[in-house]
């Protein structure tokens, strides 16, 4: 994948990635690798460009004040940086999630009659 194509894809999925990160750490603080694994598990597409693309997104969220980072220790007592949701982040997650759900409901309502007609 050339750098140009990489740029395009990333721009498209930036919003989605941010949301996924927020969702992932909503249940509790995680370090970078764990977040990456979790997202990969849930939706493989987004991070196909490489785990590395996680980190700029993290910085973006920190800059917007939605998450905060602090040093901590992992399971194996390894030093790692953990990220948790801030209050603002939690609120943002909630509103974004609602938006997505409303959107998917609306789309569903439009699409479903077709499916029923096919019966």
């Amino acid at each position: 994948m050339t750098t140009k194509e990489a740029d395009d894809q990333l721009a498209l999925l930036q919003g989605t990635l941010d949301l996924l990160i927020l969702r992932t750490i909503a249940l509790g603080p995680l370090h970078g690798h764990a977040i990456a694994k979790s997202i990969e598990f849930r939706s493989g597409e987004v991070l196909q460009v490489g785990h590395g693309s996680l980190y700029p997104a993290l910085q973006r969220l920190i800059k917007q004040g939605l998450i905060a980072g602090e040093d901590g220790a992992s399971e194996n007592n390894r030093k790692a940086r953990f990220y948790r949701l801030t209050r603002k982040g939690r609120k943002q997650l909630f509103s974004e999630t609602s938006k997505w759900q409303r959107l998917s409901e609306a789309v569903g309502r439009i699409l479903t009659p077709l499916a029923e007609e096919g019966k």
Partner: protein
Amino acid sequence: MAWGKNSGKRLQDEIQAHIDFEIQENVEAGMTPEEARYAAMRKFGNVLLTREQSREIWGWLWAERLWQDIRYALRGLKKNPGFSAVAILSLALGIGATTSMFSLIYAVLLHPVPYADWQRLTYPAYFNDDQPTSPVWWFTLSWPQYQQLLKADSVEDAVGDVDVTSEITGHDVPEEVTVTYITENVDRSLRVPALLGRNIQLSDAEAAQLGAPIVLSYDFWMRHYNSDRNVLGKTLELDHKPYTVVGVMPRDYAWERDVYVPMSLLPTRERNVLPVMKLKPGVTLDHANAEIGALLHQFAKDTPQSFPIRFRMHLQHISDRIITAVGHALILLFAAVVMLLIIGCANCSILLLARGMNRQSELAVRAALGASRNRILRQLIVEALVLAVTGSLFGILLAYWMAKLIFSLFPDVFMHESVVRINLPILAFSIALALFTGLLFGLLPSLRMSRPDLAKVTQASGRKIAGHSGQARSLSMLIAAQIALTTIIMGAAGAAIGGFMQMTHRNFGYDPAHVMSVPIRLHQHSYPTREGRAAYLKTLQEKIAAVPGVTGVALSGNAIPPDDGVNLTFEILGTPSAQRQYLRGNFISPEYFSTLHIPLLQGRLWNESENIDGRAVGVINQTFAHRYFPDGNAIGQQIRTPMLTLDSEEPGRLVGTPDTAGWLQIIGVVADSLNDGLNQPVQPALYMPYSRFMWMGTQFLVRTQGEPLSSLHEVQSAILSVNPDQQTGQNVRDLTQWIEEQSEFKQQRLFSILFGLFSGLALALALAGLYSVVSYSVAQRTNEFGIRMALGAQRAHILWIVCRNVGITVSSGLLAGLLIFGAFHNLLAHWTQNSYSNPLILAAVAVLFILCAAAACIVPALRAASIEPMQAVRYE
């Protein structure tokens, strides 16, 4: 939170930890440590890119990147000192020369004189239809006529002045001074702020009687008071009358000589004023000519002796003289510097292009490492800008320095600007042009980056085989264009220098070396008789001749070559002529010819007694003899000059023989000598004994063994020994100096020097560019040459290849330049009033350029030929 100093390190650690986690998982999944590591790295992606993008989120990255780029660019410049020096110098020279030249020209054209509303000031000029050889004359008016002029419709104001020669008394050494009686409206009209004190003003008209005010000109103040700033209030005694110094005018206030006093101090009947008129706003010259012409014709009816029989008004703006004198040539000079600017920018572009062609592989590698196209573009822009900005900064410095230099070398041409002012628009324009060309050619290599196939580009560049690429073509065209321009400038310089040499080595007809002219002025009312005056002058002449070191003395009433004599109409007895014909009349002693080394060709000169008696005899020059006596029978003919009359309002001023307008006999023919300036053909001339017509002043032409001016003091002592009150005039001149002070001489010299300088610069730039390009192209084709030699080519053949390519470009440029120069040559000659046109110029320029170009290309060409084939093939 912001991106602090530690954030980079922290992120690096974090990324490392991330990768370690992944490695660990991979190992636990069953991979070998090696495989685990590779898999983890691959999964992560581009670490550097991640770090950069993370930093980018926090903004200000662009500033840091910019600073990085700038530092990198500066490092790059330092690493290639040759390239940088030539590129920066090219830009600096182009910008500096153009700006300084344009600023000076602009100053001359914009502000030729310091007077307020100078565009409306006109000289009282008219065409004298009776004397077509001296087309423009100036009129003077009597006081009542002047008052009438002031009331004319077209005239807003008129400043009148009368020049009177006076003596500074009250000092040990008497000094001659020209006093200008000036109308008191001068300050209101011209509004030039005085350097010290004030100018003559309206209030002086009444207050003049008490402690008469006097204003000094800058030159006089420097000369007489040694630029003493405490001069205000001091008393100056003229002709035994006291005046109080009330002001000093600035250097560029070149109204008249010496000192100014209010007109009201001069009795009305002596006021023959020369009026400089300030027209009302919106009045055209035609309108003014019509109205004032009518007025003047009316005056002519009242006082016919003051005006010629037929004349037409031809008022002249005072700026016309100055501008026409230098206008065309300055425009040409400006064209030359603009070409220099273009050459400078072209040179810089050539260097950038050549270097860019060599950097294709470097740029491809950058792209492969992850740099986006924008990033690379940004870096190239910064590099080009750093170069252009540095060049521009030096260019600004150079502009100031060059303007100062030219200004100080030629104060006469640019006299009216006491401060050197750099014209900002042209500076901005030059810099903009420099930046534009720098950017354009700096970015050209990156245009190839738009190709999506990186791998091909990387490989192709790596092999360093040059083909005909678009870039190579534009490079060749640029070089050819630059060479063409350089050739044109060199041709112009050749013409200017050639013309100058021709002028200075022209046969003047006389020998100006070791001769000086010493003017003297008789006191008012002294020697009112012809015999007395002639005898007095004769005594002086003899006394001067006795001074050791003096080898010849002659008396000359009005004949100081190369521009001498007075225009007179004449008639030849027995050969009537329908039109008026003119000669130059000169009043001299017979030693004039021997002192100036002018040979006698036919007949004889008049002897001493004929000289003293003012006998009616004369000698003509060769031009006269050929034109009017083509059969060679000049000797014995009679001619007369009816205009030469002694009538004057002041008896005792002009004295001479009663038959000045009568017939005199030609007794000899002398060789021609310049008498109408350095560039004009010789006019027919008649030389007569000086005692026939004597003014209040005259000159002694003194020839000495050594430097004439070093004998001046002794000559003055000799004069004083005859008459202790006889001062010598101020402008004692070495005749060689006099030639150098002729304006044509100075102008030609100025233009030769400037054109020569500019062409030298252009040539240097062009050669530097050529050298760089040839070096670069040889370096680029190293592989190819190695292969050729490995395949059996001789070294001479390699040399031939290099030379052939260069040769084609250079020749086409040279040819284009010579053709263009040849086409415009006539226009050039007409504009510089330089009739020097010699096909040898073109040949000389071509040869010179070819030699220099060959010298510039030899080194890289030899380097090409001395490549070791095996090394070359492997050369990356």
